[in-house]
């Protein structure tokens, strides 16, 4: 298995599209942080003008922590697209180019090949998230320095700067887990089709569709919401509550692990029975 993973990693490292994700993050983070540097005060004052009516606000609002928090929201849509570019290509892309035929003639079970590709996809996902974390916090620190984190979610929560690091660690872990679910979904779709575009479009369509349905808040969906994986993509925000609801987060982790398992099992099952016609 290690051999197969090394081979997949080699292929990913050699593919130019692998670096699109890192470049995109670099540009998104850079652009947003520069925008905040020049226009941030004005933008923030719009958000907090109600607070300024009742209080005098003392301290730096715009800092590395706030920007990292804001940019972590990019895992809702932007990061999944970048992940799918690579994981969606894992099987469908090779089927389209004919190289799938080449590697399936080797003495390895199809499930082993699938698992190696999946693990490589997960490693890519993790590296993308680590880069996001490093880039946002590093550049944020350089431009704005550190400070307390003000979270405008369900009211206002102010978290001291020395109380923030561990929260971000767990938040990024949670976000990474959500992105691994996305990677698993795109790989599963990749096993069903023979073109690389299908998994990318399919995964994003599912994400957007589910997000829209469940954000609308129709009563009919209320009970099933906790079991839909897209509702867990923003669960990382719970790590920035004053009193962290551990039960909700534990359930979230469990649900997401179940989805990762299901998506990968379905993908392996389909890949095993699939006739390779390309």
């Amino acid at each position: 298995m290690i051999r197969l993973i090394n081979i997949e990693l080699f292929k990913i490292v050699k593919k130019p599209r692998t670096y699109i994700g890192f470049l995109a993050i670099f540009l998104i983070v850079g652009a947003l942080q520069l925008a905040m540097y020049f226009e941030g005060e004005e933008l923030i004052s719009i958000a907090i003008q109600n607070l300024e009516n009742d209080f005098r606000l003392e301290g730096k609002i715009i800092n590395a922590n706030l920007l990292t928090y804001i940019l972590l929201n990019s895992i809702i849509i932007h990061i999944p697209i970048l992940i799918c570019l690579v994981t969606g290509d894992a099987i469908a892309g090779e089927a389209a180019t004919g190289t799938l035929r080449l590697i399936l003639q080797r003495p390895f079970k199809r499930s082993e090949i699938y698992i190696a590709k999946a693990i490589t996809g997960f490693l890519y996902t993790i590296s993308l998230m680590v880069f996001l974390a490093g880039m946002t916090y590093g550049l944020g620190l350089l431009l704005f320095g550190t400070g307390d984190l003000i979270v405008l979610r369900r009211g206002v929560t102010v978290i001291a700067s020395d109380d923030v690091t561990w929260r971000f660690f767990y938040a990024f872990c949670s976000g990474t887990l959500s992105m691994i679910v996305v990677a698993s979904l795109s790989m599963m779709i990749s096993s069903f089709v023979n073109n690389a575009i299908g998994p990318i479009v399919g995964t994003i369509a599912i994400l957007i569709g589910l997000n829209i349905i469940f954000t609308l808040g129709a009563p009919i969906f209320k009970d099933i919401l906790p079991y839909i994986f897209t509702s867990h993509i923003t669960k990382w925000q719970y790590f920035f509550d004053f009193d962290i609801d551990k039960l909700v987060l534990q359930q979230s982790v469990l649900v997401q692990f179940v989805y990762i398992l299901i998506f990968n099992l379905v993908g392996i099952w389909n890949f095993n029975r699939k006739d390779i016609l390309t």
Partner: protein
Amino acid sequence: MIKWLFILLFSFSIGLFSAQSSDAKKRMLNMVEKLERVPPYSCDVNINIDVKFIRIKERVGKMIYRSPEDIDYKIKGFAFLPKKEMGTISTSLFKDDFIAIDMGKENENQIIKVIPMDINSEIVTGQFWIDSADLVQKMILITKEKGSYTAEMNYNGTLYDLPSKIRMSFDVKNQKMPALLTGDLEAYTDETDEDEVSKGTITIMYSNHQF
């Protein structure tokens, strides 16, 4: 006879009332004078907030007092502080002419109601609870546009009769941010009453005064 008795009684009452008002006014003016005698100083502060939708731990820092209208804070991290206008408003009450009415006593504190003569004044009325040592234990200010402020003071013998603790209460409008701004896309939340107004409290403890 009874008529003259009544007129006498009425005149006596008005005289008494006037004497009491002028006493109350004198007392208020003495307090303002006392406040104006306070030189610039700095002290350590501990700030706690109790507002329904704000979650923040105690903040520590320094306060630099130059005048009632000029107070600066140097706080480690981010803090919610009383609006500067609170100090300005409380002193502006006494800038122009005013009526002070003795409202009696409550728990050994004299209650004095202050009404500004200027019809355009931001403050509609203020009420002060003053103890026998001429220390303001509590005050309520009602403004035209900014709601009401209540401040309760505690003292521990600091120079210039400065309070060791002030607990300020005021009306606060509940904050509801657009989801696009907060990234909070979860539906089915328990939040209700978008424009609910609630009472907010800032408690500041002062110590280690340096003049």
